């Protein structure tokens, strides 16, 4: 079974070496690829200096575009499983095996979830997470505890579908759409770290816009989308 870890990186020169070295050291049975999303800092240079596997996008495509690049690569090289792994150090490598074991039971997508057996803390961000969960429950009938987790593993069919189509961003609305189309999804309890260096992309107004987009998309748009 060929397994690929896709690491989208935007301005992560501070974090990328630590993350990739850890994967190379402890998880050499997995292949990995860093997708540099047109970073303004020296992410690409740092990767080349260390001899990392690198796909270097010449322009910034955003997370969806960068992740899709990794999936296209996985599709072309015939990988069986691919996992999205953040370059900022939030995702912990020790859970990759656990997620792989779950997806080998035959699921299409397995989410590394923070809240399967643990309760959500009370915060504004988690209120947003709850609202997305509720919207998904209303439209699909299935409860996803941690819809915004970026740690997701896809099987071969999903790799192909994500790689070749429009509107397959690595976001909760895509998951919602796929559940409705009959994809099987499971969650595995993981822990995540706070990001260690650099700045988060989501500030308050961006978070609000993100929420609005997700809710309209999940509650409305996904219900009349047609699968190709």
């Amino acid at each position, binding site marked *: 079974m060929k397994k690929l870890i896709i690491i989208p990186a935007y301005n992560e020169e501070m974090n990328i070496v630590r993350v990739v070295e850890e994967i190379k050291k402890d998880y050499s049975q997995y292949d990995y690829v860093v997708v540099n999303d047109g970073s303004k800092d020296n992410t690409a240079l740092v990767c080349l200096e260390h001899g990392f596997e690198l796909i270097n996008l*010449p322009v910034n495509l955003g997370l969806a575009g960068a992740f899709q690049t990794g999936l296209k690569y996985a599709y072309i090289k015939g990988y069986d499983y691919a996992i999205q792994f953040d370059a900022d150090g939030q995702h912990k490598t020790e859970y990759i095996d656990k997620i792989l074991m779950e997806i080998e039971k035959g699921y299409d997508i397995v989410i590394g979830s923070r809240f399967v057996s643990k309760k959500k803390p009370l915060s504004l961000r988690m209120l947003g997470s709850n609202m997305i969960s509720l919207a998904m429950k209303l439209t699909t009938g299935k409860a996803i505890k941690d819809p915004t987790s970026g740690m997701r593993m896809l099987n071969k069919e999903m790799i192909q579908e994500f790689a070749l189509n429009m*509107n397959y961003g690595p976001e909760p609305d895509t998951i919602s759409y796929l559940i409705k189309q009959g994809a099987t999804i499971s969650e595995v309890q993981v822990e995540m770290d706070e990001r260690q260096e650099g700045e988060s992309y989501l500030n308050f107004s961006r978070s609000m816009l993100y929420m*609005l987009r997700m809710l309209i*998309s999940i509650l409305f*748009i996904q219900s*009349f*989308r047609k699968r190709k």
Partner: protein
Amino acid sequence: MSLAFRIILILASLMTTLYIVRKIRYSKLQIEYAIFWIILSFLLILISIFPVLVTIPTNIIGMQAPVNFVFLVIIFILLIKAFMQTIEHSQLEDKLNALAQKMAIDEKLNREKQTRYDTDYSIQNHMKKDKGK
């Protein structure tokens, strides 16, 4: 407002929404961009069914006719949208330039590498021939 006119307004806004939804259904546009049109088309339906939504603010600002208020607001929304699209358009063009330039420069660098390799190769062959003599 006559009943016939209201019915025309409601039908027109419903059909606009239907058209937009159909296009989204067949994945003709990205969801990010679809959201604006979904909200706008809902707004049109809402206004056509409940015209008080327009008459109340018209009276509050002290405008002459509700239709002026509608024109003002919609034209303003479209103006802003047009400007935002100009920004997106410019950024796309910039990215397209960057991509074309990168491809062309990479291709030139590859060709340089290839000719260097070819020359090296023919020199080596010549040297082998010389040795053979």
